[in-house]
């Protein structure tokens, strides 16, 4: 009995600080935000709030918000696709076509950009993508009459910046599942006469699917909530659900509307996470 009691104390003592902290900073704020999303005004100062569905009603009534939600979701789809198309082949090459002695160094090189400030990287893209920027200069150096291809302040610029920011996540998760594949499986397939394409389709792709899916979730979820990248790279094209939510809290000060829009965003995220949860769980088991 005493041992059992000590065990309980130990478990409680070891886990309580972490979960009290998370309760105060994650779970309690989310609950309060849910409450705020049903209010007419924020109950700060002397204002008298009343309960209402008006904030969610505004979302359903106004075409504008639905358009922005659609744009944010499409932005997530495009960036995720971009990361898959660039990142998966890179991870495949890194895991199966690079000599061992180079692999670790190359891997470090790919994750290093992660460790520079995200804002500065995004801002650097403005110098590259703007009219008369680096890409224009480079093109004109080769073809003197080349027209300007400056795409700054357009939708493609946002996609370029976001793909750049999230590509290392995709390469990382794909690489981890690809390099765990037993080489003898590939050799067995080859000795049985499988072509390269068949090996990819029947061995590599199915076995690395969990990593690929984890990467897709890790990219998609933060991208649909992004606001800094669309603002800096998108100009007038850069209005998304994220920037509208930011405005509600920093410029317009309509907190209940911001809270309601946040919960709509959260609902989208949770739907996606719930769909991917069985796969994610199998894949992220370092505990």
């Amino acid at each position, binding site marked *: 009995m005493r041992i059992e009691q000590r065990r309980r104390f130990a478990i409680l003592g070891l886990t309580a600080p972490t979960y009290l902290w998370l309760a105060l900073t994650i779970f309690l704020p989310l609950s309060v935000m849910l409450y*705020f999303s049903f209010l007419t005004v924020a109950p*700060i100062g002397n204002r008298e709030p009343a309960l209402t569905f008006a904030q969610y009603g505004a979302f359903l009534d106004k075409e504008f918000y639905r358009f922005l939600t659609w744009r944010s979701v499409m932005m997530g789809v495009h960036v995720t696709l971009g990361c898959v198309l660039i990142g998966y082949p890179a991870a495949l090459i890194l895991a199966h*076509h690079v000599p061992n002695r180079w692999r670790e160094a190359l891997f470090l090189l790919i994750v290093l950009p992660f*460790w520079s400030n995200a*804002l500065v990287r995004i801002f650097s893209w403005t110098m590259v993508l703007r009219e008369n920027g680096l890409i224009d200069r480079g093109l004109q150096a080769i073809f003197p009459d080349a027209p300007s291809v400056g795409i700054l302040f357009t939708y493609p610029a946002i996609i370029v910046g976001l793909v750049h920011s999230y590509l290392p996540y995709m390469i990382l998760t794909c690489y981890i599942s690809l390099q765990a594949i037993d080489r003898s499986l590939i050799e067995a397939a080859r000795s049985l006469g499988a072509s390269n394409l068949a090996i990819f389709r029947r061995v590599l792709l199915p076995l690395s699917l969990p990593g690929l899916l984890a990467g897709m*979730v890790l990219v998609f979820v933060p991208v649909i909530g992004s606001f800094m990248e669309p603002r800096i790279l998108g100009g007038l094209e850069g209005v998304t659900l994220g920037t509208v*939510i930011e405005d509600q809290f920093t410029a317009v000060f309509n907190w209940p509307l911001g809270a309601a829009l946040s919960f709509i965003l959260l609902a989208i995220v949770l739907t996606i996470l719930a769909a991917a949860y069985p796969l994610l769980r199998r894949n992220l088991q*370092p505990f």
Partner: protein
Amino acid sequence: MKGLLKSLVSGYLALVLVFLYLPIAVMMVMAFNQSPLYRLPVVWDTVWFEELAGNERLLGASLNSVVLALINAVIATALGTMAALAFARYQFRGKTLLQILLFPPITIPWLIIGTSMLILFFWTGIGRGLHAMLLGHVALSLPYVIVVVGARLKSFGVTLEEAAATLGASPWQVFWRVSAPVMGPGIVAAALFAFAVSFDQFVISYFLAPPGISTLPVEIYSAIRKGFTPEINAISTIIILVSMGLMLLFARFSRFGGER
């Protein structure tokens, strides 16, 4: 045929690396470019580093960032290591639930976490400021610390600790003489990770920053929106060199990146 495939393969990796490093290279070059409007061609000068030395706003924000990241690393590593120990050494009801509860801080967009903290802290009087940012940063760091330390704990069993206990060591002695030294590399890696999470964190700090108090990322964002000055490129150049150093240190202490 084989040679062609090989050069295609290395060419592709090289292209990906160019894409990843292009903006970082641009930032570093512009830090040394005399023109404040980022004109090309580059006129090499160190004027922005000199300006930076006199920019108290930016240096103050950087100092805030460093102090915040340090305190965050200490608190998150301590709390996270405790939780990781509980997960690794005890079986108990509700363990899976507790582990699932670690997902929200990583998977919910920071925009939502940040704005909800702003609402709660403002409403309850906790208020905004560095203390509020610290609350948020630790929450974001905890899951990473638990995963990193947990992975390390998993790699050695309970046998060592049991052996020590059998030989008469008190639980306290077992922790300091056996567990802590073996966990060491994992703890160092986790602390570096927590430092980086906080140092680079923008969204949460942005919503919790009152006027007049900021961290480096918050300061950079307001500078970009007002008209970016090349001093930011200068300080970013310094920081990326420091973070790369930290990253190399991290790589030494944690073995991620595959088999050796």
